[in-house]
């Protein structure tokens, strides 16, 4: 039995926040840990693409990225996930992240994208480096990402 969709947009609002950018789309994320920050980023991307509550957790996909800097890890992970959606047509509802040295192994739980069942929110062309932030502060981990839409 696929998991019944229960998430709502208000639940997404606790995971990330969209901010105003004239031409494009920006998000801000905070998380208690580094791994959770990347997990929330993965979920945020799904929520920007479709109404995430409509996605059932039927299949799993793995994505791995490796980079020296956390900034590059964030950029490369979100780019890989965008490709997973645009090339393979896979959309996810949840994710889990395993941190191994300078790499991330991310497991996505979702299903093949079906425009009839998954209301589409808008095309994202790319993950930009513009004002990209990934940092650890006394209040926890924080990131800021601008997408080209």
């Amino acid at each position: 039995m696929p998991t019944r969709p229960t998430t709502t947009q208000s639940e997404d609002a606790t995971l990330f926040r969209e901010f105003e950018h004239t031409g494009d789309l920006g998000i801000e994320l905070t998380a208690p840990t580094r791994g959770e920050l990347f997990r929330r980023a993965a979920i945020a991307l799904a929520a920007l693409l479709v109404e995430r509550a409509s996605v059932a957790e039927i299949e799993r996909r793995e994505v791995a990225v490796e980079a020296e800097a956390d900034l590059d890890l964030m950029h490369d992970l979100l780019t890989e996930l965008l490709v997973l959606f645009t090339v393979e047509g896979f959309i996810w509802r949840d994710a889990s992240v395993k941190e191994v040295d300078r790499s991330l192994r991310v497991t996505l739980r979702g299903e093949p994208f079906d425009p009839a069942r998954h209301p589409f929110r808008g095309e994202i062309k790319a993950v930009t480096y513009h004002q990209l932030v990934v940092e650890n502060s006394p209040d926890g981990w924080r990131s800021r990402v601008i997408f080209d839409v």
Partner: protein
Amino acid sequence: MDLIKLNDHLWEIPQTGAMLVPGRVYANARMIEEMRDDPALTQVANVACLPGIVGYSLAMPDIHWGYGFPIGGVAAVDAREGVISPGGVGYDINCGVRLARTNLHFNSVEPKIDRLADALFNTIPAGVGSWGAIPGLSIGQLKDVAREGARWALRNGYANERDLEHTEEGGMLAGADPDLISERAYQRGSKQLGTLGSGNHFLEVSRVDEIYDSKVADALGLELGQVTVLIHSGSRGLGHQTCDDYLKLIVRAMARYEIKLPDRQLAAVPISSPEGKAYLAAMAAAANFAWCNRQVMMHLAEQAFLQALSITPKELSFELVYDVCHNIAKFEEHSVGRHQQLVCVHRKGATRAFGPGHPALPEALRPIGQPVLIPGDMGRYSFVLVGLETAMRETFGSSCHGAGRLMSRMKAKREAAGRDLRAELNALGVTVRAHTRAGIAEEMPHAYKDVAEVVQVMEAARITRRVARLKPFAVIKG
């Protein structure tokens, strides 16, 4: 931001800090007040730090906050000493606009607008993924497209020779190397030839509702009441991935060339470096895909017209007026100071606008200057302009590219909440077919500046002149 007024439509950002040249912004006093605190002006100053930049870091009146470069920015760098910045072209390589004219008068189409809008919506794939316009292409065929651009469309029955003559660069940018496009980029673009995409891309059926220069309008075959088609799209996933692939490479290579820039998204390497050469050859290949894409869509639009209106190709007389790109980097000769210099002009949300007599223009257009196509928002109007001689001296032969956003997408959606935008647009005489409600909300007319004001600034500065105004009556969106 410190701004010096040079005249009523031109402002200078003085050269300070790491800037290698001053910035110059084309705008009227009202626009300048509106953009004074906008990050876009800081971005104009950041672009002025690119090694090899000559003249000025330029901004057109439709400037707004981009990533790295401002949208509406122009930067020319010395072709030998300068750098190439993928961010100065953008993810949508050769995003552009093409205008086709018909032999139809608005009065004859008016009773059938719904049928026509449906036919266009059903024929030209738009929105997410949007695929299936023409049979899926193999990697080998996609490489042919990347090598030949609109010429591939000609070989495959989607174009005629005249279409190519009326396309910037003949629809094929020299120096393209399809082998420098990644397999992933080909995968992203494999089913997308002849598709519109989403965001601000659209197909608009309009009528000519104002002629400003009847001599030039005649030369372009435009007359009052005539039905025209404007298509705004680019290189789709293939271009997005190509930019991303090379940006990633160049961000990491930049340190090797000791280039330091205020924003990572501006990442640049010398034009003469292996990375720079590879990017330019891949960019040209993606640009060619975009020209072929718009050409195939124009062909599909013609089929939709024929089917919806039950007329013959001769009665329709669907002909390309011109096709321009507004996200590109190109090698061109320009006067810099007192000298002619080969420069690489980055146009990020800016349109080439060569003046009369330029050898790059086809013979038929040379006496009048290059047509410049400026889409507005979907509720108001779009413009056809021509390039003037001053553009060659002041802006590296460049003009504006559109209305420019006024509201963020979020704000537009908030403003649209609870409103029936389709009905509002209908009241303005515009029939909209779109895949998503958000797509209409983000692109609603008031999210944009008034494009008339933008083109008036360019006219006051004698960069481009208005030829005709187009009033949309049917719009297809993703």
